[in-house]
């Protein structure tokens, strides 16, 4: 059974691009586009990897990450954070909040693929 990736991202074109890249590599990609009920989806899907955008409508990525890490059942799931803001303090916040990896948009496709693969392997 293919490993599942949950992509939480509000830009439809970026969802399309990441979905294409990971699907072609054999991943089962599910996406969700707002912050409100993102936790519900994570709990329901129990993905192998979460790709989480920081700026989401409804709720920001850091808060969602904190919830994930606080949840005993989800706590260990690898989370790749994406941000378009590119500020140093965002990276620090992401690391403190417990992101498994942190990536600044725009990214190269190969890089995303590598990171997602490495996150599941470990």
């Amino acid at each position, binding site marked *: 059974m293919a490993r599942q990736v949950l992509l939480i991202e509000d830009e439809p074109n970026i969802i399309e691009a990441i979905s294409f890249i990971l699907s072609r590599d054999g991943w089962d990609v599910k996406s969700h586009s707002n912050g409100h009920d993102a936790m519900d989806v994570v709990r329901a899907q129990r993905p192998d990897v979460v790709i989480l955008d920081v700026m989401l409508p409804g709720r920001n990525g850091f808060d969602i990450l904190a919830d994930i890490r606080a949840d005993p059942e989800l706590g260990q799931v690898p989370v790749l954070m994406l941000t378009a803001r*590119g500020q140093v303090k965002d990276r620090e916040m992401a690391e403190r909040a417990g992101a498994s990896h942190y990536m600044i948009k725009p990214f190269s496709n190969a890089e995303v693929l590598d990171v997602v693969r490495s996150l599941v392997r470990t």
Partner: protein
Amino acid sequence: MTTPNLLVLVCILYVTFLFTIAFAADRAARKGRGTWLRSPLIYTLSLSIYCTAWTFYGAVGYAARSGMEFVTIYLGPTLVMIGWWWTLRKMVRIGRSQRITSIADMISSRYGKSNTLAVFVTLIAVVGTTPYIALQLQSVTLSFAAFSKVDPTLTSVVRLQSIGLYVAIGLAVFTILFGTRNVDANERHHGVVMAIALEAVVKLFALLAVGVFVVWGLGGGIGDTLATIDASKIAEWEVPGSRWAGLTMLSAMAFICLPRIFQVMVVENEDEGHLRTATWAFPVYLMLMSLFVIPIAAVGLERLPSDANPDLFVLTLPLMAGEDALAILSFLGGFSSATSMVIVAAIALSTMVSNHIVMPIWLRMKGGTAVVAGDVRDVALLARRLSIAGVVMLGYFYFRLSGAGTALAAIGLVSFAGLSQFLPALMGGLFWRGATRLGALAGLTVGFVLWLYCLFLPSFGPGVLMPVSVIEDGLLGLSWLRPQALFGAQGMDKVVHAVMWSMLLNTAAFITVSLLTFPKPIERLQGAQFVNVFDHSGHPGSWTGGLAQSEDLLIMTQRIMGAAEAQALFSGMAHKQGLTGYLPEPSTEFLGVLERELSGSVGAATAHAMISQIVGRATVSVEDLLAVADEAAQIMEYSSRLEAKSAEQARTARQLREANDKLTKLSVQKDSFLSQVSHELRTPMTSIRAFSEILRDAGGLNLREQQKYSSIIYDESRRLTRLLDDLLDLSVLESGQITLNMQLGLVADMLDRAVAATGADGFRIERDVASEQIVLNTDVDRLSQVFINLIANAHKYCDADQPVLRIDVRSADDTLEIDFADNGTGIQMADQAVIFEKFARIGESTAAGAGLGLAICREIMARLGGDISYVPGQSGAAFRVTLPQEMCMAAQ
């Protein structure tokens, strides 16, 4: 034969001699030598400025005209010196303990340091003294003329008058040189006092010499002279008792009140003990001065032609006899009398004028602010010098204007009567604690006005300054107001009449008003200090340094003057005292020097108080305390200005802090803005990069996929461009560097264009084109941009099933309103506040647009002088564009 040139030469030599003496005396005094300068004899001789040219020449003339009456002029002062010496002593004591500088200062100080009173006294003194100065100039000129009569080749009248001018200028220069060496008016003028003492000797010697010559040379001995006197009309003159008593009283009062007498007797007094000597020595001097008056008058009347001016007998008798040397001596005697009077009067008056009139005005012009001490000193000196020149020149002009008509004695008596008006206020101040400032003012005013009315104005003769009708029928035709028969008091001597009424009513007003008014606290304090001066001050003649600690003094002085200067002063004084150490004995002399030095830095009053405390004499006078309080007030004012300054600094600091906060906030805003810009730029770039990599790397994409991904790249590129355009647009709008392209445009046309530009398909727009027929003078493109934004927003965000946008154009009073309302759910209350902010995309909308549209609209409307706002409470989202009516050109 004596020529005027010789006389001028003699005058110049004499004045040079006086200069030398005065200069030497000043030097000696400054070096602390010359104790003989402070002898009671010098003091007594300096008092002789009472004997002016009036006495020197005029007494003989007086005797020739009125017999023994001239004696009253000597009798008054003699009675005062002998009978009222305790009053004089009180004045001297107060003068020293209160550091009085003039009679004006004395009176004003007594009545609570009232400057009004001081100004008033000063004015009376100037008015009363000016004729007297004129009198002196006149006598000098007359004495020149006396020589010219003997020598017909002599000078013209013009030249004589110019002699008066030269004398006036010379005296002014002399007085300025020696009278204003130091700013402290309370300081003694040793040089001047020495010079006038010398002049006193010269005039006495000259008069005695002439007397001896007249009695033994011309009169043929005592017996013959007495016979001549008996034969002359002098013996027949009977002086009425009232006039005798009146004139004696008048000269007694004047002796106390004359500013120049006050100057030498009180201000220049070195030692109270000198007064004791003067009480007997001065009457002796007066007696000697009057000894030969009658003989000279009698012999003059007998020997000289009947048209000869008796005022000049002293001069003309020796001239007639061909005794040129004696005549010149006599001339010098008169010259001395005149010059000493002018010099001292000028010093006294200039002190009053500068201290009570010029300085207060100057200080007020400076805004009453604390000024640097040196500053004040310069101004005070300048004021005093100018006042001296002014006073002397005033006398000169009076002399030129009045001519030489009036007899010397008459002018003198008028002047005496005027100055005597000070007496009630002065004596009341010395002896009656109930006397008040208002009482003094009332008395002085009444006395001065009556003097002007009854004596001064009529003295110029009927019709000159006072109309004949007033003199004969009284003011306003009221006979009881006749100036020389006031209240029906007829048949009296004019002078006695004026003195009686003015003094009587002056005193009555003084007492009545004093009883009716209450003194202010400072008046009470000063009153007590004056009246009880002997209880308060031990012996204020000089410092006694018994308990003084030189070391304490040095420490204090170092604090004030700085260490080096203070040590130099102290060791210098110690050396002078013949001591080996650096600390001098705290002698009176040393303490005096020290006080003067200190007063240069901290003011006289403070210096006095400081030394008092260290020397251990706890009698700091009230005046000193008051002066310290004045200085303290200045310091307090200064410190309150400092406080104001520090408050200002606090304000500045607060402003800086606020500016800093604002900057910090701006910086945060800038960071947040950059972060948002970054986000908005990176998001489309992410898509572009991802799909271009896909297109590049991944083979086997079908055509549909290729097209789809290409158009995503295309759309995202356009989004990037739009974003950059918006950012640049906003930046231009916000910086205000935008140039508006004003032109005429129809609202309907602009809306048409906007609707077309948004290409809103499946979106109904309701308009009332008839109401849109309004021509605006505006930037049509910019306004259209706003419309496009609003329509596009409605298109993007209206969530109704069948979206409808309604555009209403309304003309209100002074504005044009264009509403854009859709039928969606509208914008939530919380979001309404932020929609016009940059990047304020709200809700979960994922529609394209960076969130700069409304921010740009707001900027544009602000530039166009209008406004854009969200209209809450509508069924959907409603925006209102408001334009000022003046943009509307016409409604069609």
